[in-house]
Protein backbone atom coordinates (compact mmCIF):
# COMPACT_ATOMS: atom_id res chain seq x y z
CA UNK A 1 0.00 0.00 0.00
CA UNK A 2 2.81 2.44 0.91
CA UNK A 3 6.12 2.76 -0.85
CA UNK A 4 9.22 4.85 -0.53
CA UNK A 5 10.19 6.77 -3.62
CA UNK A 6 13.33 8.76 -4.23
CA UNK A 7 12.96 12.06 -6.05
CA UNK A 8 15.34 14.77 -7.14
CA UNK A 9 13.91 18.24 -7.33
CA UNK A 10 15.25 21.74 -7.86
CA UNK A 11 13.38 24.20 -5.73
CA UNK A 12 13.45 27.81 -4.73
CA UNK A 13 13.70 28.45 -1.00
CA UNK A 14 12.29 31.87 -0.12
CA UNK A 15 14.54 33.85 2.23
CA UNK A 16 11.97 34.26 5.01
CA UNK A 17 12.30 30.61 6.02
CA UNK A 18 16.09 30.61 5.86
CA UNK A 19 16.09 31.55 9.53
CA UNK A 20 15.52 27.83 10.06
CA UNK A 21 18.41 25.39 9.65
CA UNK A 22 18.76 24.68 5.94
CA UNK A 23 17.50 21.08 6.06
CA UNK A 24 14.39 22.14 7.94
CA UNK A 25 13.73 25.07 5.64
CA UNK A 26 13.94 22.77 2.64
CA UNK A 27 11.66 20.25 4.31
CA UNK A 28 9.07 22.97 4.86
CA UNK A 29 9.22 23.86 1.18
CA UNK A 30 9.07 20.23 0.07
CA UNK A 31 6.04 19.58 2.25
CA UNK A 32 4.36 22.60 0.74
CA UNK A 33 5.07 21.28 -2.75
CA UNK A 34 4.41 17.57 -2.40
CA UNK A 35 2.26 16.70 0.59
CA UNK A 36 -1.20 15.39 -0.24
CA UNK A 37 -0.48 15.69 -3.97
CA UNK A 38 -0.56 13.00 -6.61
CA UNK A 39 2.53 12.47 -8.72
CA UNK A 40 1.53 10.79 -11.95
CA UNK A 41 2.43 7.07 -12.01
CA UNK A 42 3.97 7.37 -8.56
CA UNK A 43 0.99 7.78 -6.29
CA UNK A 44 -0.23 10.08 -3.56
CA UNK A 45 2.50 11.69 -1.51
CA UNK A 46 1.94 11.05 2.19
CA UNK A 47 5.03 12.33 3.92
CA UNK A 48 8.61 13.48 3.37
CA UNK A 49 10.62 10.62 4.81
CA UNK A 50 14.15 11.98 4.65
CA UNK A 51 16.43 14.32 2.74
CA UNK A 52 19.40 12.60 1.16
CA UNK A 53 21.42 15.45 -0.24
CA UNK A 54 21.25 19.21 -0.68
CA UNK A 55 23.26 20.88 -3.39
CA UNK A 56 23.48 24.33 -4.84
CA UNK A 57 22.20 27.41 -3.10
CA UNK A 58 22.70 29.50 -6.18
CA UNK A 59 20.97 32.85 -6.41
CA UNK A 60 19.89 33.55 -9.96
CA UNK A 61 20.21 37.09 -11.28
CA UNK A 62 17.33 39.37 -10.32
CA UNK A 63 15.86 36.82 -7.96
CA UNK A 64 15.70 37.16 -4.19
CA UNK A 65 15.86 33.51 -3.27
CA UNK A 66 18.32 30.64 -3.24
CA UNK A 67 17.78 27.63 -5.47
CA UNK A 68 18.74 24.19 -4.23
CA UNK A 69 18.80 20.76 -5.81
CA UNK A 70 17.57 18.24 -3.30
CA UNK A 71 17.44 14.44 -3.35
CA UNK A 72 14.85 13.17 -0.92
CA UNK A 73 12.63 10.22 -0.11
CA UNK A 74 8.87 10.39 0.23
CA UNK A 75 6.27 7.94 1.45
CA UNK A 76 3.85 7.28 -1.38
CA UNK A 77 0.42 5.75 -1.27
CA UNK A 78 0.32 3.46 -4.27
CA UNK A 79 -1.66 0.24 -3.93
CA UNK A 80 -0.59 -2.65 -6.14
CA UNK A 81 -3.01 -4.56 -8.33
CA UNK A 82 -4.41 -7.48 -6.37
CA UNK A 83 -3.93 -5.86 -2.98
CA UNK A 84 -6.73 -6.18 -0.44
CA UNK A 85 -7.57 -2.95 1.40
CA UNK A 86 -10.18 -2.12 3.99
CA UNK A 87 -12.23 1.01 3.28
CA UNK A 88 -15.42 2.77 4.24
CA UNK A 89 -18.42 3.31 2.00
CA UNK A 90 -18.71 6.89 0.82
CA UNK A 91 -21.36 6.85 -1.86
CA UNK A 92 -23.60 4.21 -3.32
CA UNK A 93 -25.53 4.93 -6.48
CA UNK A 94 -26.75 3.22 -9.64
CA UNK A 95 -23.24 3.16 -11.12
CA UNK A 96 -21.76 1.27 -8.20
CA UNK A 97 -19.94 2.16 -5.02
CA UNK A 98 -17.50 4.82 -4.07
CA UNK A 99 -15.18 3.94 -1.18
CA UNK A 100 -12.99 6.10 1.00
CA UNK A 101 -9.86 5.55 3.06
CA UNK A 102 -10.21 8.85 4.88
CA UNK A 103 -7.17 10.30 3.16
CA UNK A 104 -8.05 9.04 -0.30
CA UNK A 105 -11.57 9.06 -1.75
CA UNK A 106 -11.31 8.11 -5.40
CA UNK A 107 -11.98 4.40 -5.17
CA UNK A 108 -14.76 3.16 -7.39
CA UNK A 109 -16.39 -0.24 -7.58
CA UNK A 110 -18.39 -0.48 -10.82
CA UNK A 111 -21.56 -2.55 -11.00
CA UNK A 112 -19.93 -5.41 -12.90
CA UNK A 113 -17.38 -5.92 -10.11
CA UNK A 114 -19.93 -6.10 -7.31
CA UNK A 115 -20.72 -9.52 -5.84
CA UNK A 116 -22.88 -11.42 -8.34
CA UNK A 117 -25.86 -11.35 -8.41
CA UNK A 118 -26.46 -7.97 -6.81
CA UNK A 119 -29.47 -5.75 -7.08
CA UNK A 120 -29.91 -2.08 -6.26
CA UNK A 121 -32.66 -0.82 -4.02
CA UNK A 122 -33.47 2.88 -3.92
CA UNK A 123 -32.60 4.61 -0.68
CA UNK A 124 -35.80 6.18 0.68
CA UNK A 125 -33.93 8.95 2.46
CA UNK A 126 -31.71 10.23 -0.31
CA UNK A 127 -32.73 10.73 -3.88
CA UNK A 128 -30.48 9.17 -6.49
CA UNK A 129 -28.79 6.96 -3.91
CA UNK A 130 -29.26 3.22 -3.85
CA UNK A 131 -28.34 0.40 -1.51
CA UNK A 132 -26.69 -2.58 -3.14
CA UNK A 133 -27.79 -5.98 -1.95
CA UNK A 134 -25.97 -9.21 -2.69
CA UNK A 135 -28.36 -12.07 -3.23
CA UNK A 136 -26.51 -15.19 -2.11
CA UNK A 137 -28.66 -18.33 -2.50
CA UNK A 138 -31.78 -16.35 -1.64
CA UNK A 139 -30.18 -14.67 1.36
CA UNK A 140 -29.77 -10.90 1.28
CA UNK A 141 -26.52 -9.25 2.23
CA UNK A 142 -26.61 -5.48 2.37
CA UNK A 143 -23.65 -3.23 1.64
CA UNK A 144 -24.08 -0.45 4.14
CA UNK A 145 -22.18 2.27 6.00
CA UNK A 146 -21.54 0.41 9.20
CA UNK A 147 -18.73 -1.93 8.34
CA UNK A 148 -15.29 -1.75 6.96
CA UNK A 149 -15.44 -2.99 3.37
CA UNK A 150 -12.61 -5.06 1.96
CA UNK A 151 -11.96 -4.62 -1.71
CA UNK A 152 -9.34 -5.82 -4.12
CA UNK A 153 -7.46 -3.36 -6.27
CA UNK A 154 -8.17 -4.07 -9.96
CA UNK A 155 -6.39 -1.13 -11.48
CA UNK A 156 -4.85 2.22 -10.59
CA UNK A 157 -5.22 4.95 -13.20
CA UNK A 158 -3.74 8.39 -13.52
CA UNK A 159 -6.03 10.21 -15.95
CA UNK A 160 -4.46 13.13 -17.83
CA UNK A 161 -5.39 16.60 -16.63
CA UNK A 162 -8.35 17.73 -18.75
CA UNK A 163 -7.86 20.89 -20.76
CA UNK A 164 -11.46 21.88 -20.55
CA UNK A 165 -13.89 20.62 -17.96
CA UNK A 166 -17.63 20.53 -18.39
CA UNK A 167 -19.63 22.19 -15.66
CA UNK A 168 -21.69 19.17 -14.75
CA UNK A 169 -18.83 16.67 -14.67
CA UNK A 170 -17.46 15.52 -11.33
CA UNK A 171 -14.28 17.10 -10.00
CA UNK A 172 -11.11 15.92 -11.64
CA UNK A 173 -9.32 13.16 -9.76
CA UNK A 174 -5.63 12.68 -10.59
CA UNK A 175 -5.55 9.10 -9.32
CA UNK A 176 -8.44 6.67 -9.57
CA UNK A 177 -8.51 3.18 -8.09
CA UNK A 178 -10.91 0.60 -9.45
CA UNK A 179 -11.78 -1.99 -6.88
CA UNK A 180 -13.70 -5.23 -7.01
CA UNK A 181 -15.89 -7.04 -4.52
CA UNK A 182 -16.64 -10.12 -6.60
CA UNK A 183 -14.68 -12.76 -4.69
CA UNK A 184 -15.03 -14.63 -1.42
CA UNK A 185 -13.82 -12.67 1.56
CA UNK A 186 -14.62 -9.27 0.05
CA UNK A 187 -17.26 -6.79 1.06
CA UNK A 188 -18.28 -5.78 4.58
CA UNK A 189 -16.26 -7.83 7.06
CA UNK A 190 -19.36 -8.82 9.02
CA UNK A 191 -20.50 -10.98 6.08
CA UNK A 192 -17.60 -13.31 6.63
CA UNK A 193 -17.41 -13.44 10.39
CA UNK A 194 -21.05 -14.52 10.34
CA UNK A 195 -20.32 -17.09 7.64
CA UNK A 196 -17.63 -18.64 9.80
CA UNK A 197 -20.09 -19.04 12.63
CA UNK A 198 -22.58 -20.84 10.42
CA UNK A 199 -19.95 -23.34 9.40
Amino acid at each position, binding site marked *: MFYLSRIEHTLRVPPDILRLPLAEAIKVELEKLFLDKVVSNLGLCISVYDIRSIEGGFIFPSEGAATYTVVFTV*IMFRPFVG*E*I*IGAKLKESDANGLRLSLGFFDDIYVPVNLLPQPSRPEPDPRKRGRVTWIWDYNGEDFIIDWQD*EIRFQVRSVNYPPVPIEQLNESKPFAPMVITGSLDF*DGSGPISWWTDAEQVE
Partner: protein
Amino acid sequence: MKILEANAGPLTNFEVIKFLKSRGASKDPSRVLADVSPSEYKVYDYLVETAACNQSQENINEFLEKSKKYDLAKAELLNIINIRPSTPVELYSMIEQCDDRLGDTVEELVEVVVEVLPSPPTETANEEGTSEANQETVTKENIEEQKIDEGDEKMAK
Protein backbone atom coordinates in the same frame (compact mmCIF):
# COMPACT_ATOMS: atom_id res chain seq x y z
CA MET B 1 11.31 17.08 -10.73
CA LYS B 2 13.11 13.88 -11.54
CA ILE B 3 12.10 10.49 -10.22
CA LEU B 4 15.31 8.70 -9.31
CA GLU B 5 13.78 5.57 -7.92
CA ALA B 6 10.04 4.98 -8.11
CA ASN B 7 10.20 2.06 -5.74
CA ALA B 8 12.86 2.39 -3.07
CA GLY B 9 11.13 -0.23 -0.95
CA PRO B 10 7.61 -1.01 0.19
CA LEU B 11 6.42 -0.11 3.68
CA THR B 12 3.94 -1.95 5.83
CA ASN B 13 1.13 -0.01 7.45
CA PHE B 14 2.94 -0.54 10.71
CA GLU B 15 6.06 1.23 9.47
CA VAL B 16 4.05 4.21 8.26
CA ILE B 17 2.21 4.55 11.55
CA LYS B 18 5.50 4.23 13.43
CA PHE B 19 6.97 6.99 11.31
CA LEU B 20 3.99 9.28 11.96
CA LYS B 21 4.08 8.52 15.67
CA SER B 22 7.76 9.37 15.77
CA ARG B 23 6.83 12.77 14.37
CA GLY B 24 4.40 13.27 17.23
CA ALA B 25 1.09 12.08 15.82
CA SER B 26 -1.34 10.85 18.45
CA LYS B 27 -5.01 10.65 19.26
CA ASP B 28 -5.08 13.08 22.17
CA PRO B 29 -5.99 16.78 21.78
CA SER B 30 -2.39 17.94 21.99
CA ARG B 31 -1.97 16.67 18.46
CA VAL B 32 -2.53 20.13 17.05
CA LEU B 33 0.82 21.13 18.51
CA ALA B 34 2.74 18.36 16.78
CA ASP B 35 4.61 19.00 13.59
CA VAL B 36 2.24 16.84 11.54
CA SER B 37 0.21 18.20 8.67
CA PRO B 38 -3.56 17.69 8.36
CA SER B 39 -3.15 15.33 5.43
CA GLU B 40 -0.75 13.21 7.44
CA TYR B 41 -3.26 13.09 10.25
CA LYS B 42 -5.85 11.70 7.84
CA VAL B 43 -3.47 8.85 7.09
CA TYR B 44 -2.78 8.37 10.78
CA ASP B 45 -6.50 8.32 11.60
CA TYR B 46 -7.03 5.66 8.96
CA LEU B 47 -4.13 3.55 10.15
CA VAL B 48 -5.04 3.57 13.86
CA GLU B 49 -8.27 1.84 12.87
CA THR B 50 -6.41 -0.96 11.10
CA ALA B 51 -4.55 -3.97 12.44
CA ALA B 52 -1.32 -1.96 12.30
CA CYS B 53 -2.21 0.03 15.41
CA ASN B 54 -0.77 -2.39 17.94
CA GLN B 55 1.74 -4.38 15.96
CA SER B 56 5.39 -4.21 16.85
CA GLN B 57 8.62 -4.87 15.00
CA GLU B 58 9.09 -8.09 16.99
CA ASN B 59 5.64 -9.37 16.01
CA ILE B 60 6.33 -8.77 12.36
CA ASN B 61 9.80 -10.32 12.41
CA GLU B 62 8.43 -13.35 14.19
CA PHE B 63 5.65 -13.67 11.65
CA LEU B 64 8.07 -13.40 8.73
CA GLU B 65 10.23 -16.08 10.30
CA LYS B 66 7.32 -18.44 10.89
CA SER B 67 5.78 -17.92 7.46
CA LYS B 68 8.99 -18.72 5.60
CA LYS B 69 8.04 -22.34 5.05
CA TYR B 70 4.88 -21.37 3.16
CA ASP B 71 6.98 -19.73 0.44
CA LEU B 72 4.83 -16.64 0.01
CA ALA B 73 5.61 -13.68 -2.22
CA LYS B 74 6.65 -10.39 -0.64
CA ALA B 75 3.46 -8.66 -1.72
CA GLU B 76 1.37 -11.41 -0.17
CA LEU B 77 3.22 -11.16 3.13
CA LEU B 78 2.80 -7.40 3.09
CA ASN B 79 -0.91 -7.79 2.53
CA ILE B 80 -1.27 -10.35 5.29
CA ILE B 81 0.56 -8.14 7.78
CA ASN B 82 -1.55 -5.13 6.84
CA ILE B 83 -4.92 -6.87 6.97
CA ARG B 84 -4.24 -9.61 9.52
CA PRO B 85 -6.76 -12.16 8.17
CA SER B 86 -8.23 -14.14 11.03
CA THR B 87 -10.26 -16.60 8.95
CA PRO B 88 -9.26 -18.81 5.98
CA VAL B 89 -11.84 -17.14 3.73
CA GLU B 90 -10.10 -13.78 4.19
CA LEU B 91 -6.73 -15.31 3.47
CA TYR B 92 -7.83 -17.06 0.27
CA SER B 93 -8.23 -13.85 -1.64
CA MET B 94 -4.80 -12.55 -0.65
CA ILE B 95 -2.83 -15.48 -1.96
CA GLU B 96 -2.67 -16.36 -5.60
CA GLN B 97 -3.71 -19.92 -6.41
CA CYS B 98 -4.17 -20.51 -2.74
CA ASP B 99 -5.56 -24.01 -3.11
CA ASP B 100 -2.67 -25.32 -5.19
CA ARG B 101 0.08 -23.70 -3.21
CA LEU B 102 -1.08 -24.03 0.35
CA GLY B 103 -3.65 -26.82 0.22
CA ASP B 104 -4.51 -27.81 3.74
CA THR B 105 -1.92 -25.60 5.36
CA VAL B 106 -4.19 -22.53 4.99
CA GLU B 107 -5.70 -23.16 8.41
CA GLU B 108 -2.22 -23.52 9.83
CA LEU B 109 -1.15 -20.19 8.38
CA VAL B 110 -4.26 -18.49 9.76
CA GLU B 111 -3.38 -19.87 13.17
CA VAL B 112 0.11 -18.43 12.84
CA VAL B 113 -1.35 -15.04 11.87
CA VAL B 114 -3.79 -15.01 14.78
CA GLU B 115 -1.16 -16.19 17.22
CA VAL B 116 1.73 -13.94 16.25
CA LEU B 117 0.15 -10.68 15.10
CA PRO B 118 -1.80 -8.89 17.83
CA SER B 119 -5.49 -8.44 17.14
CA PRO B 120 -6.84 -4.97 16.53
CA PRO B 121 -9.16 -3.53 19.17
CA THR B 122 -12.54 -5.10 18.48
CA GLU B 123 -14.02 -2.89 15.82
CA THR B 124 -13.60 -0.09 18.37
CA ALA B 125 -16.28 1.19 20.66
CA ASN B 126 -17.91 3.52 18.13
CA GLU B 127 -19.24 0.59 16.14
CA GLU B 128 -20.73 -0.98 19.19
CA GLY B 129 -24.43 -1.60 18.86
CA THR B 130 -24.48 -0.94 15.13
CA SER B 131 -24.84 -4.56 14.27
CA GLU B 132 -26.38 -7.19 16.43
CA ALA B 133 -24.76 -9.91 14.41
CA ASN B 134 -21.37 -8.49 15.31
CA GLN B 135 -22.12 -8.60 18.96
CA GLU B 136 -23.10 -12.20 18.78
CA THR B 137 -19.75 -13.12 17.38
CA VAL B 138 -17.92 -12.02 20.50
CA THR B 139 -15.67 -14.98 21.00
CA LYS B 140 -13.14 -15.78 23.62
CA GLU B 141 -10.57 -14.00 21.55
CA ASN B 142 -12.52 -10.76 21.52
CA ILE B 143 -12.97 -10.84 25.25
CA GLU B 144 -9.23 -11.17 25.61
CA GLU B 145 -8.76 -8.19 23.36
CA GLN B 146 -11.09 -6.10 25.44
CA LYS B 147 -9.05 -6.92 28.48
CA ILE B 148 -5.94 -5.81 26.70
CA ASP B 149 -7.68 -2.61 25.67
CA GLU B 150 -8.69 -1.84 29.18
CA GLY B 151 -5.13 -2.48 30.28
CA ASP B 152 -3.90 -0.03 27.66
CA GLU B 153 -6.30 2.62 28.78
CA LYS B 154 -5.14 2.28 32.33
CA MET B 155 -1.58 2.58 31.18
CA ALA B 156 -2.48 5.73 29.31
CA LYS B 157 -4.00 7.26 32.41
